[in-house]
């Protein structure tokens, strides 16, 4: 894989993992009232 391939892979994966971490952190940090 060339350098551009690695850049696209790392940017895509890290973007998605960051989004997921942010969302789940916010979801779990709020206490649910039912």
């Amino acid at each position, binding site marked *: 894989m060339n350098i551009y*391939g690695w850049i*696209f892979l790392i940017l895509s994966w890290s973007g998605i*993992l960051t989004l*997921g971490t942010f969302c789940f952190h*916010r979801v779990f940090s709020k206490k649910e009232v*039912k």
Partner: protein
Amino acid sequence: MHKPKRESWGSRLGIIMAVAGSAVGLGNFLRFPVQAAGNGGGAFMIPYFVALLLLGIPLVWIEWTLGRYGGGFEHGTAPGIFHSLLQKNRFIKYFGVIGIFGPFVIFIYYTFIASWTLGYSFYSIKGVLAPLGDQASIQSFLRGYQGLEQNGFFKSIAPAYMFFLITFSLNIFVIYYGIRGGIETLCKIALPVLFCFGIILAIRVLTLGAPDAAKPGWNVGNGLGFLWNPDFGALKSAKVWLAAAGQIFFTLSVGIGVILTYASYLSKGDDVVLSGMTAVSMNEFAEVVLGSSIIIPAAFVFFGPIDIQAIARQGAFDLGFVTMPLILGKLPLSSIFSFLWFALLFLAGVTSSVSLAQPAVAFLEDEFNISRKRAVGIFAAVGFLLCQPAIFFLGRGVVNELDFWGGTFCLVLFGTIETILFVWVFGMDKAWEEIHHGADIRIPRIFKFIIKYVTPVFLLVILGAWFFQEGLPTIFLKGVSEADKPFVLWTRLGLIALFSALAIMVKIAWRKRRKRA
């Protein structure tokens, strides 16, 4: 007559898992890698993420909000939800028929396809698939299983039919137990298991190195390169942008009507912005991280840079059901890895198929005021009957026809209609306020502009381009053999009858409602 209280989700994580379960399907693991590899590799991710931002995420927020809004009026499906947007208009509810018709039509063939993965899981663990060492044998196994030919592997379609019955019954069992007891419980178990299986398979593939010492170039790094090395020239092609937008559309389960129904079981003060984004992030993890790490790199290391191009062109299903068993058969502990692969696809399939069943059941419950048990009974009887042509006339173009109308045309059309209704009929200011009711995060203001102008235009462009590129040839039966034409036309007539029946049911339901009022 006393109307029972509508169901609700047991927890916030429950609906997030259910929506993610609906979105994560066979397409994440089979369609995405093929689309990316064939449309510019890494460069495909530019239009892909642009479409995610301008089309996918706005549509997700629109559907979650519309669903929750309609649920406040005790409507769980599109006819009632659209009616609650503009109660004076007597016609608006008929647009919503597409939101019941589409998922029901997809359910008819999707359940059968999901059942193949259960069958293949069984044959994997039994050790039947591993010894099939060449493409022709596995192809023959698949055709025999599907009932397309009698061969040394299968004398009839009976085994496939048995796995279909198990899958169909599982779907009915889950929806019978309702939103909280059935769908939420299933997704809370199935999704983590699915992700575990996906991670195990991805690690196995990514640690393959170069299995053939004589061919060091056939390694995982180059396999990832086949999918990720960008071809920037592809960005000039409208086809690539359209393919990326289409992939986003299909992967997020938008435009079907499923999210509307799921979100209708939320309360008015429940957040939709963060929950919607969380479900999107789970789907994207399954698609971009896991989907790109399994099938294409594995195919590359065993077949090399020349054959992989032909393999990627052969289509998602052959890749999943023919190439993948062949690849997994070459690994140590092949039966276990093959089982993990098909079990992963089965879990992805069944969490999607239950979501496709729910709109029709919710329609019967909410608009005809009948109990869940009876609604599920009616759905099971009608659904079971309608599944039969997809099973027995699979090779006659019936499934392609169902997929065209239910799984493609209705999705794009319905997505366009709901966006225009929400933004332009309901009104953007009201819509923006409604989205933010109980929201845990504020959406950047730029999205107000995007949702109002960019998303509808994007949708209209996709609808128009797709209609001329793929719609017209399919409508005029281009490429359909003379022998298959009667089957395709009968299917089309059946679909018209089903759509008409649903429209009449909407009319009857509203007439009854007026009488009650």
